[in-house]
């Protein structure tokens, strides 16, 4: 055996041992999908992708895990800038307008079958982002959610309570369900101090973040009401503000609920299956309460195709997206996780199968969509969220700084950020206008 052959042989053996990164099979069009879920949801997505790869001979989708949403998004943006981005990824809703206006996203309206996709209107952002506006389709809803309340069924029964339907009832229930005594104190209520839940509170108090005329009001007085509710609950020790930032805080909330340290929590519908499967008590899902009205934001991510990817990869990515939006896949994803079914066909499939009778908890988020608020098409909203609002919410709740003062400050800063003609609430075309302001 020549030395070179020996070397090649041992290299190959080494490669096999190490398990090289999955490569695209010969003859298939490869598509990388950058994704950002952990744990159970990740396993389900990988199973779905494997099923797709087996279902047809032409395309091979390769899922690549990229950390949490923010990390994946950061990666995606640097990769786009460097021309090293994949053809397919998914991003949080708030950032879609920004990416679209920067010209990064592929318009999908003219791809075959795009007209037939029948999304649940509030999940596809009908009216502001998708069809119904003059704007092309750039993002397909994927893992979409709303915030919901989860209650510890055992404690609720002991206290003979119903899920709270108003802010006052929420306060009372938190008082009744919590216990400060004994070896294991328990919080009545827990909720991440996060922009998403604050937006829900603002809506419930009758406000909205951006007015229909495009003015950034941060809900006006309703914005303050939301913060004040949190401050009262925390001051009276009825609510625990979970430590940690971003998703760290969300995880703490789940953990406290499962361990019986919090009787009632608000978090995403996305955790429904996880909480049900790991709780040692009956988990009861309930809609969020109202103040002056009922309202919830939607959340979660959208699939996007990157414009600079090669044509055949983009076409292959699109084929995969069509497959993912078939009722069967939509249903598997929704029932396996707790996310909402995004197409009307998927919803009717679930209804004909009687799924919601058996799983009333799954129905809660879907019913809540009646009162869902749509996100405006705003280029800089994600920036306002991260830089202006989020730190001030933490500050208000953790240090007790006056809510109205902080929100005034936030409004002034955010307006400077947004500029005057930044927001187009519904119909105007965005792709070409106002490019000058896009950067920073």
């Amino acid at each position: 055996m020549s030395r070179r052959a020996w070397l090649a042989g041992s290299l190959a053996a080494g490669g096999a041992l190490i398990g090289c990164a999955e490569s695209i099979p010969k003859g298939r069009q490869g598509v990388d999908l950058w994704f950002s879920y952990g744990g159970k949801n990740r396993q389900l997505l990988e199973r779905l992708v494997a099923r797709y790869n087996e279902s047809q001979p032409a395309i091979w989708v390769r899922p690549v895990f990229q950390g949490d949403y923010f990390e994946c998004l950061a990666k995606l943006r640097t990769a786009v800038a460097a021309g090293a981005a994949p053809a397919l990824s998914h991003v949080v809703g708030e950032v879609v307008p920004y990416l679209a206006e920067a010209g990064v996203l592929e318009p999908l309206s003219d791809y075959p079958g795009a007209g037939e996709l029948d999304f649940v209107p509030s999940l596809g952002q009908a009216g502001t982002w998708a069809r119904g506006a003059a704007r092309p389709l750039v993002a397909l809803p994927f893992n979409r959610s709303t915030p919901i309340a989860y209650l510890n069924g055992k404690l609720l029964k002991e206290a003979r309570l119903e899920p709270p339907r108003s802010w006052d009832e929420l306060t009372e229930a938190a008082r009744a369900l919590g216990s400060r005594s004994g070896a294991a104190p328990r919080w009545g209520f827990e909720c991440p101090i996060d922009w998403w839940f604050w937006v829900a509170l603002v809506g419930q108090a009758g406000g909205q973040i951006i007015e229909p005329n495009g003015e950034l009001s941060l809900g006006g007085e309703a914005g303050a009401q939301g913060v004040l509710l949190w401050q009262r609950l925390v001051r009276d020790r009825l609510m625990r503000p979970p430590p940690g930032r971003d998703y760290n805080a969300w995880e703490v909330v789940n953990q406290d609920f499962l361990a019986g340290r919090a009787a009632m929590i608000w978090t995403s519908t996305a955790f429904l299956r996880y909480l049900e499967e790991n709780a040692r008590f009956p988990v009861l899902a309930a809609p969020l309460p109202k103040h002056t009205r009922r309202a919830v934001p939607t959340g979660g991510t959208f699939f996007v195709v990157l414009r600079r990817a090669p044509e055949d990869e983009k076409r292959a990515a699109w084929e995969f997206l069509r497959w993912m939006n078939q009722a069967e896949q939509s249903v598997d994803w929704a029932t396996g996780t707790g996310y909402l079914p995004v197409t009307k066909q998927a919803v009717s499939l679930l209804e004909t199968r009687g799924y919601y009778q058996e799983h009333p908890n799954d129905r809660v988020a879907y019913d809540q969509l009646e009162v869902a608020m749509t996100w405006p098409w705003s280029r800089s909203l994600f920036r306002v969220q991260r830089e202006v609002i989020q730190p001030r919410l933490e500050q208000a709740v953790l240090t007790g700084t006056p809510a109205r003062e902080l929100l005034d400050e936030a409004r002034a800063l955010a307006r400077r950020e947004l500029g005057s003609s930044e927001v187009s609430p519904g119909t105007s075309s965005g792709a070409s206008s106002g490019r000058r302001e896009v950067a920073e």
Partner: protein
Amino acid sequence: MRRGAVNLGLLAVGLVWLLPYAWMVVTSFKTLPEIVEAPTAPLPSGLPLDAYQEVMRSLPLGRYLFNTLVMSLLIAALQIAVALPAAYALSKLSFRGRGVAFGLVVATLLIPAQVRFVPVFAMLADVGLANTMTALVLPFGVSAFGTFLLRQALGSVPTQVIEAARMDGASELYIVFGMLPRMIVPSLVAFFMFSFIYHYSDYFWPLVMTADDKVRTLPLGVALLREQGTGVRWHVVMAGNVLLSLPVLGLFAVAQRHLLRAVTSRGL
């Protein structure tokens, strides 16, 4: 009697360092229900390998470890290869611009990676090198610190030795790469180990430079175990942590003497 009391005191101090490690190992042998139910129970109910299996399932661990080792070894080797001739010139040769060259090296001593990654990333991406081993290794080719250290070490080699070698007809290439390294072995070993340990543990650069499993490294993979989605799975994170720490702790156990000498005599 007194010795016993002293040892007890030492143990108490040592526990501040030993207990967190123990806690890491204990946690890695728990199961998800145990973590949720009683996160602070001092002992797991058994020795299930659930968490380790979960780590193996969600990460191509062998691949990550291989990448990490290749990257750290290549960086350390490259740094030494680049630093040796430079250190020789800076410590032994008289030429115009010597002070300036040394100044340039020293000026980069404290520039952290976070300060330079954006242009470097853009540059490497332009030539198709983003997300490759080259992107992980080449930007660390020069270690200002290594150059500085080897310059000091070579400074203690008597000039006469080099003159004698020149008389014997040795080429400069041989002097730099063949003769001198043998005279400063402890410094080379020390620097090699420090470079290796530093880059083995590096988190930031692989975080921003890599995009898939082909080149991802172990610390990155373990940090990814704390992935968002459902809830913290500390038993899995700690199992990953055990696997990440074992190789360096092993190296430390074997080569502790070199490392300590390096720290104390050279002020690393």
